[in-house]
């Protein structure tokens, strides 16, 4: 009887000795994960968030003003008789419409960057979208330069007032 009790006690002790460190290790990992999560969320302090928002707003204003400028240039070109270059002009207009929609996407990414769990991943999205916008704007600009060159060189779009 004593031997059975002794064996039971020994088994229990052994099981406890084997399992306790594992349980503790798991708890420790869980705590560390929680700590890292909190750390990540706190990483973007209020001041930093404010600065990021300020830079983001500036970036959006800069882009919107540039889009508006190119729109005005297109409108001015359209005022002339541009039947011969209508297709190219429409292409430029469509590209600019696409840019405007991408600026809205960029605005969303910029504002969510300060609230998401992984701001750096969101920043990469911002970088990619902005790169696309820049390339599209350059394309629109080049098209307009070429169109103006065509108007001047081929003497199309001669205005009645000229």
């Amino acid at each position, binding site marked *: 009887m004593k031997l059975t009790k002794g064996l039971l006690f020994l088994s229990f002790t052994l099981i406890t000795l084997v399992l306790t460190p594992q349980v503790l290790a798991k708890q420790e990992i869980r705590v560390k994960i929680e700590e890292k999560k909190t750390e990540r969320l706190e990483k*973007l302090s209020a001041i*930093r968030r404010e*600065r*990021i928002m300020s*830079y*983001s707003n*500036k*970036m959006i*204003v*800069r*882009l919107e*003003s*540039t889009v*508006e*400028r*190119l729109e*005005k*240039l297109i409108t*001015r*070109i359209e*005022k*002339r008789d541009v039947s011969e270059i209508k297709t190219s002009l429409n292409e430029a207009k469509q590209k600019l419409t696409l840019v405007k929609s991408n600026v809205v996407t960029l605005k969303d990414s910029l504002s969510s*960057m300060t609230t998401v769990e992984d*701001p*750096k991943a969101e*920043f990469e999205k*911002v*970088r990619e979208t*902005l*790169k696309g*916008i*820049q390339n599209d*704007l*350059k394309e629109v*600009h080049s098209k*307009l*330069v070429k169109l*103006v060159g065509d*108007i*001047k060189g081929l003497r199309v*779009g001669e*205005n009645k007032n*000229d």
Partner: protein
Amino acid sequence: MTNKLVISLLAILVIVLGFFGYVVSSNKSFTETKTFEREITKVETISETDDIDSIETDLNATDLDGLDQELTSIETELK
């Protein structure tokens, strides 16, 4: 007596340096805002005429290079 004088002088020095730092940082922010406003005004300034030469002039004056200048600042804040 001398100790008190040294502590007072150090306190005044800290206050003066703090004030100086505040003025410099405010001034930097003010200058940045002014520069930004100037740049935006330049982008927004455009002729209304449909004269082809003036369209060309405005087109040539359209600067597309600095559109991503805030990106580096945002990246720095995220580090």
